[in-house]
């Protein structure tokens, strides 16, 4: 048996390594595990970053790799003290007579999973969700506040940009129009504060940059763009509201190729479609998922909302089409949505990349590059591909002016070895999905595109997990 200890959280982990070892030895002694099974057992003891997630406390998977083995993943945070043995035994010897999970889809890449439809529904019906929970989205964040709105961080950002403009002016290279782009605007609080600060700086220094600024607020949601207007009303003459796909901003803004001096986004990459891969035995495997509702949860939710178990799945599909109106009483529809979202879990399997010739890595990454990147990584590594973030990043770079830069405030894994010390999503954040972003892969893609990437810890709030990614031109 090999035990992979994938976290460093001794105090907050409910399941300890000694408990895990003694549990499996006991199961072996009692004959619940054969010696052959025990010899091929791989146990991964994780600590999941998000308490609300898609995992059962114990997940069993027939493992891929050159030597087939049984893979048990334990969420050391979710397992209640003293329950480990019972949960493991149930996982490895399920009761043949008990009902199976209620599947919502077939196996597929995480990126294509139905959970992203839930994520989209959340952002479309954010007001409904906030009304139902009685708290704003921001209050649902781990610190109850978004680092994206930190006044000092915004002030520093405006100052750095002003300095760039000053330098360009000194070199006689300041463009007539100064384009700034914010992708994923939320309520535009940051944009409003940034413009306030930038105008003040401009006035203090007697420069005349402010009137030349063309501030573009980009978001895929027209209603979000509409909601963002009041926050920038003092600067409305400089602002343009543009519907764009965060995965490919260049599509909507192709007329600004090589012209934008500053692109910013906050907490966007962590909510873009993602998928996971496993690097094992020098081979790449895709993690495929199948979303399901545990049977006991399906029964409970069904009875709470007057639905038979098979009606639960039909109502889920209806929910994703029409929102809370899926039930005659929309308030009940909201309740149904929240209960289902809380209950959704993933079954997982690994598929060798060579068996999925139709599945492509995100643009900017090839399998050869992935092998290069991973050749020095730990031998058995599960990591985010951050496909949505990579796509967005790569498709944003062509907008940058030769002296322009990209700032992304988000949660990043900056070294692949960190994946051996934590599990960084997918998690559930309120009604949305959250994944940390694989900064190490972003760095490689940036390198090939002519940029160096830097990650600065968010120093404005103690305990913040946010980092600030910024680009510099690569010579």
């Amino acid at each position, binding site marked *: 048996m090999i035990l992979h200890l994938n976290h460093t959280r001794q105090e907050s982990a409910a399941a300890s390594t000694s408990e895990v070892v003694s549990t499996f030895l006991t199961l072996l002694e009692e004959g619940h595990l054969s010696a052959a099974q025990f010899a091929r057992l791989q146990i991964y003891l994780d600590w999941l970053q998000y308490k609300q997630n898609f995992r059962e406390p114990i997940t069993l998977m027939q493992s891929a790799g050159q030597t087939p083995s049984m893979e048990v993943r334990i969420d050391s945070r979710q397992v209640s003290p003293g329950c480990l043995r019972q949960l493991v035994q149930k996982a490895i010897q399920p009761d043949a007579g008990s009902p199976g999970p209620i599947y919502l889809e077939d196996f597929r890449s995480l990126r294509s999973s139905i959970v992203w439809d839930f994520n989209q529904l959340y952002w479309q019906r954010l007001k409904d969700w906030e009304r139902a929970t009685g708290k704003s989205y921001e209050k649902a964040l781990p610190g109850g506040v978004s680092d994206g709105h930190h006044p000092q961080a915004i002030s520093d950002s405006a100052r750095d940009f002003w300095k760039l403009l000053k330098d360009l002016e000194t070199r006689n*290279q300041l*463009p007539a129009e100064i384009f700034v782009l914010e992708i994923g605007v939320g309520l535009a609080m940051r944009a409003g504060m940034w413009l306030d600060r930038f105008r003040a700086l401009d006035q203090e220094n007697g420069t005349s940059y402010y009137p030349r600024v063309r501030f573009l607020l980009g978001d895929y949601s027209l209603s979000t763009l509409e909601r963002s207007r009041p926050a920038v009303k003092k600067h409305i003459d400089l602002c343009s509201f543009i519907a764009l796909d965060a995965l490919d901003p260049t599509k909507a803004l192709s007329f600004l*190729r*090589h012209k934008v001096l500053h692109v910013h986004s906050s907490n966007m990459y962590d909510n873009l479609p993602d998928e996971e891969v496993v690097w094992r035995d020098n081979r790449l495997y895709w993690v495929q998922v199948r979303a399901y509702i545990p049977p006991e949860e399906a029964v409970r939710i069904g009875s709470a909302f007057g639905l038979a178990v098979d009606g639960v799945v039909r109502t889920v599909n209806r929910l994703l089409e029409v929102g809370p109106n899926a039930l005659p009483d929309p308030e009940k529809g909201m309740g149904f949505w929240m209960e289902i979202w809380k209950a959704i879990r993933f079954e997982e399997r690994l598929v060798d990349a060579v068996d999925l010739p139709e599945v492509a890595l995100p643009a900017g990454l*090839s399998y*050869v590059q992935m092998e290069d990147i991973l050749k020095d990584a730990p031998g058995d590594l599960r990591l985010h591909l951050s496909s949505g973030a990579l796509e967005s990043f790569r498709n944003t*770079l*062509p907008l*940058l*002016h*030769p*002296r322009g830069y990209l700032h992304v405030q988000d949660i990043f894994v900056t070294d692949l070895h960190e994946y051996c010390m934590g599990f960084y999503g997918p998690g559930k954040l309120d009604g949305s999905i959250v994944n940390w972003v694989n900064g190490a892969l972003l760095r490689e893609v940036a*390198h*090939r*595109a*002519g940029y160096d990437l830097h990650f600065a810890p968010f120093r404005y709030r103690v305990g913040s997990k946010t980092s600030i990614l910024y680009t510099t*031109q*690569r*010579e």
Partner: protein
Amino acid sequence: MTVPILPTTMVGSYSMPGWLERLKTDYFARRISRHDLDEIHDCAVRSAIKDQEMAGLDIVTDGELRRDNMIDYFIERLPGIQIDRSSKKFYYDFYDSEVLGKIPMAALGLVDDFKFLLANTERETKFCITGPHSLCKRVRNKYYPSDEALATDIARVMNMELKELVKAGAKLIQIDEPYYSGFPEDLPWGVEVLNKLVEGVNAKIAVHICYGNRYGKPSWEGSYRYLFPSILEAKVQQLSLEFARRGGEDLDLFREFSPPFELGAGVIDVKDQAVESPDIVAERIRKVAKFVPLEKISVLPDCGLFHLPRDIAFAKLRAMVDGTKIVRKELGR
């Protein structure tokens, strides 16, 4: 062989295939030998020449596929420049290099590349080199009193190589000086150095000045106005400038200053993978012709096609040729 009116040619580099990038990097990682890499380069260059011929170009280059980038291929041939060979992780990276003493005279070995090109095509040829100004900006200067002094000495060594190229049959030589756009304040001495480089070189000389194409993106922005009037002193026959991506605003400068040069007009945007239609190319040529006599126009992409996938690079060249044919037909030529 004579070329038609509005001759078509590349700026220099052709699409770098992914497999060749991989093999070049393998060479730097000591996974393949120099001999194998040379053979691979020969095949790649032949293929690049063939593609240009198939696309219909009037003047072909070797596609510069032997080069890692526009700097290192020359820096590592210049004697006296110290290179940290461990500084390159990916083949396209620049070496860290420094000059610690006077650069001695030496052959740079470019003539072999030219002879290979000549042996593999019956079309007119162009041979391209990176100019001394651009080279001096990438070398840490620990010996010469100024960048100008370093560039002048590089020009002295390269001048001999250019004369050897002419002896080998080179009729059209292009000097690439994109760093002018990054350091416009250097232009007055940059032109003097350029003149030293081409002094006594009995070939048609073109100088290519763009806003950079490193990693397929511009390194600088601005207006070609900075070139004037200093560039008028250059003893070259052709200026090669980019107008597709940047638009034709700077063409006004040709009316304002009436430079004596021919114009190699960039009519293909090499930083965008969208392939231009022949009609768009024709329109761009017509626009250039409003400012420069047709007899003095050559038709080119904005810069090298290095960063474009091969199929797109080829399609762009073909569109360029077809667009040029449209204009020639209108002229009855």
